[in-house]
């Protein structure tokens, strides 16, 4: 009996040929990791895993290019499995494998349980990135989370305006010399979340949604998943490069973590923060880890012991000691094994490992005031996510937003937070100081995505402007400080936009029978606020007043630009900036309730119900807007034009990794 199985066991190992040799029954969900057809770099490490579901005892064999392989956990042709597989599963791992020979390679495996066996096969491709051109010492990735083409255009129009058909100016990212488009799909969906979105750039491989730096597997801890080596690890191990991570989000969030942490659960913040430090190679041996030297953003809650207020550390989001073969194969010392230790004082551990710590903008300035910058820099400026730039600016300008009586940053117990460009400047000062080996730096503008989810166009646009200022800092570094640098600006996916918003559930025939909702919303009546949208000629050329800090005085000007959300949830729209805090905690209860009763904006669906016009969500109901499958733009700069030119055209997200590695290895 033979059968063809696709999408085995929830894994996307499509097109693996599986042949059952059992007489009547056989194990199910048999799969090989990495997924079929994965592309890896010559010498890039990855874990190979054979697993299946059935009735034990289990056994397995593995061949790569016809050569039998020894499992690092579990034993060939025996019933000794890896001991970390989920209940009902058996698994065998070959950790830390790498292949130098370019080309397509084959994997064949068999997996047996008490009822029979299944043969599976797949391929992987090894790419060569090394070449004879000048290698780039530094890689700077600026990622505007959720930033699609429309976000960039909006930021440009607000920042500069346009006249008689031409923009009055261009953003820093607009002015980078090479621009292309990037696909954004993940291993298991056309629509990615931020974890696989970043991991595609940082590892060259697709991850499953919610996972980063790993391939999917059925094991007992998300931190035990089969790993794939990140760019940071590869370049730290082979070139001694350092890593810097800068974000306006809580640093446990997917984008920063998907450069340094291997986990099947992007929300496991305790373990994620531990791994930042434990696998940073704090001694600088260059034999393992990321070489993390800069970590700036939010997320103090993960660095405080669990008994301190503001701590979010918990055993359930941590991990017990990594399997022995992971430590051995990845060259990790015992000190990097990890432990379920919510009581850990990680902040002190960072400091003991040589990090200078800053908890505010003023402290950051002080840390950099010396002639010689610190060798390592940790800045945790908020307990969770940092605040949105609009709210940080309100505090800096000492001007409350309409409808609020306090500053949001004060309410978040983070009154002095640096802007993204200031953090970027700090990171480059540290990483760029006498660093012959160079660095990889990620800078994330996180709230472009988060505010787009919330369908708060004004905050998303101002955050895009903030992000663009960070682009300017990076470009200046690559132009004037170290010209052996490549800078790319891109997003991990688009959020909330005007493009594909999902896929039909059920059949077309069933969809055709769904009842209309015209009785609920009368399509014949045009809402007044819909009439207020000036289209074509009536839109004209709105012009915003830009203050000395580089940001608009207000987003609510006469004739302001209006934005829509194609992947939206239900909402009521007024077209005006939503004040924040909307209904403030420092008001008497009676006033809070009055404000709420008066229809002050709250959640996207509940904002402005009294005066907005109802817009039915296309992608989802009374919830936030969602990511889309749209391609996103990438722009690149290097003093070496051929490096930047690689990014022209339409490319896969995983291609970005290959091109950056070619820049670092001279193969562009």
């Amino acid at each position, binding site marked *: 009996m033979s059968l063809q199985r696709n999408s085995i066991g929830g894994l996307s190992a499509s097109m693996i040929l599986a042949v059952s040799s059992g007489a009547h029954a056989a194990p199910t969900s048999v799969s090989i990791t990495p997924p079929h057809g994965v592309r890896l770099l010559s010498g890039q490490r990855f874990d190979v895993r054979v697993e299946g579901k059935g009735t034990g005892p289990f056994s397995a064999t593995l061949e790569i290019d016809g050569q039998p392989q020894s499992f690092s956990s579990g034993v060939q042709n025996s019933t000794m499995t890896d001991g970390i597989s989920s209940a009902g599963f058996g698994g065998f791992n070959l950790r830390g494998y790498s292949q130098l020979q370019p080309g397509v390679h084959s994997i064949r495996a068999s997996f047996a349980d008490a009822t029979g066996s299944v043969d599976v096969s797949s391929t992987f491709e090894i790419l060569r990135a090394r070449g004879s051109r000048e290698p780039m010492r530094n890689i700077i990735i600026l990622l505007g989370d959720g930033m699609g083409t429309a976000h960039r255009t909006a930021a440009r129009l607000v920042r500069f305006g346009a006249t008689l058909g031409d923009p009055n100016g261009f953003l820093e990212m607009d002015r980078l010399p090479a621009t292309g488009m990037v696909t954004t799909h993940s291993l298991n969906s056309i629509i990615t979340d*931020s974890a696989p979105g970043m991991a595609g750039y940082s590892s060259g491989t697709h991850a499953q949604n919610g996972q980063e730096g790993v391939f999917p597997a059925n094991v007992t801890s998300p931190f035990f998943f089969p790993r794939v080596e990140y760019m940071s690890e590869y370049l730290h191990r082979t070139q001694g490069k350092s890593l810097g991570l800068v974000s306006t*989000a*809580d640093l*446990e*969030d*997917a984008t920063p*973590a998907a450069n340094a942490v291997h986990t099947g659960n*992007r*929300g*496991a*913040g*305790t373990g994620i923060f531990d791994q930042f430090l434990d696998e940073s190679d704090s001694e600088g041996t260059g034999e393992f880890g990321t070489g993390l030297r800069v970590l700036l953003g*939010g*997320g103090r*809650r993960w660095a405080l012991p*669990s*008994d*301190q*207020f*503001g701590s*979010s*550390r*918990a*055993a*359930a*989001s*941590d991990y017990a000691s990594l399997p022995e073969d992971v430590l051995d194969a990845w060259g990790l010392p015992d000190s990097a094994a990890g432990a379920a230790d*919510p009581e850990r004082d990680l902040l002190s551990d960072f400091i003991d490992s040589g990090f200078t710590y800053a908890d*505010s903008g003023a402290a950051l300035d002080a840390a950099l005031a010396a002639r010689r910058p610190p060798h390592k820099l940790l800045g945790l400026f908020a*307990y*969770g*996510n940092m605040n949105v730039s609009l709210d940080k600016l309100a505090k800096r300008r000492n001007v409350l937003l309409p409808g609020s009586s306090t500053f949001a940053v004060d*309410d978040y*117990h*983070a*009154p002095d937070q640096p802007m993204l460009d200031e953090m970027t400047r700090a990171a480059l000062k540290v990483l760029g100081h006498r660093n012959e080996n160079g660095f990889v730096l990620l800078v994330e503008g996180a709230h472009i*995505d*988060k505010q787009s*989810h*919330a369908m708060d166009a004004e905050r998303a646009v101002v955050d895009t402007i903030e992000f663009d200022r960070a682009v300017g800092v990076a470009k200046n570094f690559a132009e004037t400080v170290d010209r052996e640098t490549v800078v790319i600006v891109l997003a991990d996916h688009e959020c909330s936009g005007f493009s594909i918003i999902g896929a039909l559930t059920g059949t077309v025939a069933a969809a055709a029978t769904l009842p209309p909702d015209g009785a609920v919303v009368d399509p014949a009546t045009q809402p007044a606020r819909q009439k207020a949208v000036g289209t074509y000629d009536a839109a004209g050329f709105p012009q915003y007043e830009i203050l000395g800090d580089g940001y608009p005085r207000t987003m609510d000007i006469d004739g302001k630009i209006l934005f829509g959300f194609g992947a939206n949830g239900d909402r009521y729209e007024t077209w005006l900036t939503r004040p*924040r*805090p*909307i*209904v*403030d*905690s420092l008001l008497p*209860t009676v006033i*809070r*309730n009055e404000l*709420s*009763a*008066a*229809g002050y904006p*709250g*959640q996207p*669906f*509940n904002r402005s*119900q009294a005066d907005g016009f109802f817009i039915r969500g296309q992608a989802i109901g*009374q919830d*936030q807007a969602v990511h889309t499958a749209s391609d996103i733009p990438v722009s690149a700069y290097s003093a070496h034009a051929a490096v930047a030119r690689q990014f022209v055209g339409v490319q896969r997200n995983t291609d970005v990794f290959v091109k950056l590695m070619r820049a670092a290895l001279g193969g562009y």
Partner: protein
Amino acid sequence: MQRWVLGGAALLVLASAAAFAVQRAPEPTPPLPATPSAAVSPAPPALPEAERLEFREFFEPGAGLLLTPKLRALSGKRVRLVGFMAQLELPPRGAFYLVPRPVHCDESGGGTADLPLESVLVLSTSSAGQAVPFLAGALEVTGLLEVGNQPDSEGRVSAFRLRLDAERPSPQPAATPPDVSSG
């Protein structure tokens, strides 16, 4: 937009609005007699008076997260608190976060990162294991306050919890005795 009051009969609104109502029979809710009758339903011991607590009274001014004497004194006591239900993409089961201002948290990883530090996890026994349907607008909750970090089964840590009073109108003399421990 109406204001919800939880901790008494209003919690039934949560239960009846929840999707799980179709999955299991609603818990019986004895009708409340218009005129309380000791013969039918003996008067329960009165609940201790709930102390009014404001979110701004949680921490001392500044960024140090020092608890105020009032908050520390109210730990283990019955309090009344007004705020908003945080809207999370992946909300906790049998509970919701009460926050001082409307908050909408996206994606699982960054979800609780957007919650203000004063966030109170409001625990509802009647909604155990179920997602509490989102309610917009100001909420008033009443129940036992717990102060101190505590993780749930999913690893989410709450610094403050409020166990709602039993799902009956506690001030009503005809109500059955309150179970404030599990409420």
